[in-house]
């Protein structure tokens, strides 16, 4: 594969995202659970979620599942608003800063975990180019979510 400029992010992302439409495998999307297990300090925001004492407790936790679904739906919106992420996520950004007090570093962690889950689901089809496209999307979402922090 070439590294001399054949990679045009805008065109490739559009094509890639049509193939890997997130909504096709919502039931398998356990990125949120993975975030809380691989990076356990992220649990600090979810004291009200109940039992997070072990990986299996986290996997079975209905609040984790519900929140995971909410987050995934948001990512789906991101794909529809690729050219306008900052506007699309403005309200959510304010919420995460003013009410939820989430360190924006966590958005990067979740984005990386989401990419790992996609790799797990798509196996060999998740080529370096596809990974690059998705890493750009999750980085864009993380930036948009951090944009309104003050």
């Amino acid at each position, binding site marked *: *594969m*070439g*590294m001399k400029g054949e*990679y045009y992010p805008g065109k490739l992302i559009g094509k890639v995202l049509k193939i890997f439409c997130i909504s096709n495998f919502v039931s398998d999307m*356990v990125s949120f*659970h*993975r975030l809380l*297990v*691989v*990076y*356990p300090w992220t649990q600090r925001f979810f004291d009200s979620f109940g039992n997070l004492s072990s*990986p299996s407790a986290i*996997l079975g936790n209905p609040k984790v599942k519900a929140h995971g679904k909410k987050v995934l739906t948001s990512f789906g919106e991101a794909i529809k608003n690729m050219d306008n992420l900052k506007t699309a996520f403005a309200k959510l950004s304010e919420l995460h800063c003013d009410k939820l007090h989430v360190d924006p570093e966590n958005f990067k962690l979740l984005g*990386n975990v989401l*990419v*790992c*889950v996609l*790799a*797990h*689901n*798509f*196996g*060999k089809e*998740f080529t*370096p*180019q596809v*990974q*690059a496209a998705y*890493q750009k999307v999750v980085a864009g979402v993380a930036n948009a979510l951090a944009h309104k922090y003050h």
Partner: protein
Amino acid sequence: MLSARERAQIAQVWDLIAGHEAQFGAELLLRLFTVYPSTKVYFPHLSACQDATQLLSHGQRMLAAVGAAVQHMDHLRAALSPLADLHALVLRVDPANFPLLIQCFHVVLASHLQDEFTVEMQAAWDKFLTGVAVVLTEKYR
């Protein structure tokens, strides 16, 4: 500090990699260069020509070092001392790059191993590789 369970999971991950060091290592480097192009500055000859033989060879070398780290996970500092010297005095890879490599490593494992690479294994592997990165950059100053 690694728990007994984490040690077992790290050994499990290595068992899945062993025998595929060259292939996984080459793909790891390819993903690194594709997803994070700025990392190419640390591999000028390798990233310019992207020669498969060289990628396999360097990939093999890198993963062999990871394998050595797995064998000595309880005394990483001693085992990785020569590599730590190399990184501090010669390579001087900015520490911010190690998480990028680690992310690509998870993606290689997730895409090849799928269900065999469980969430708990990823957690242990991430903790282990982060520890390796700390040791490799410890002598920087």
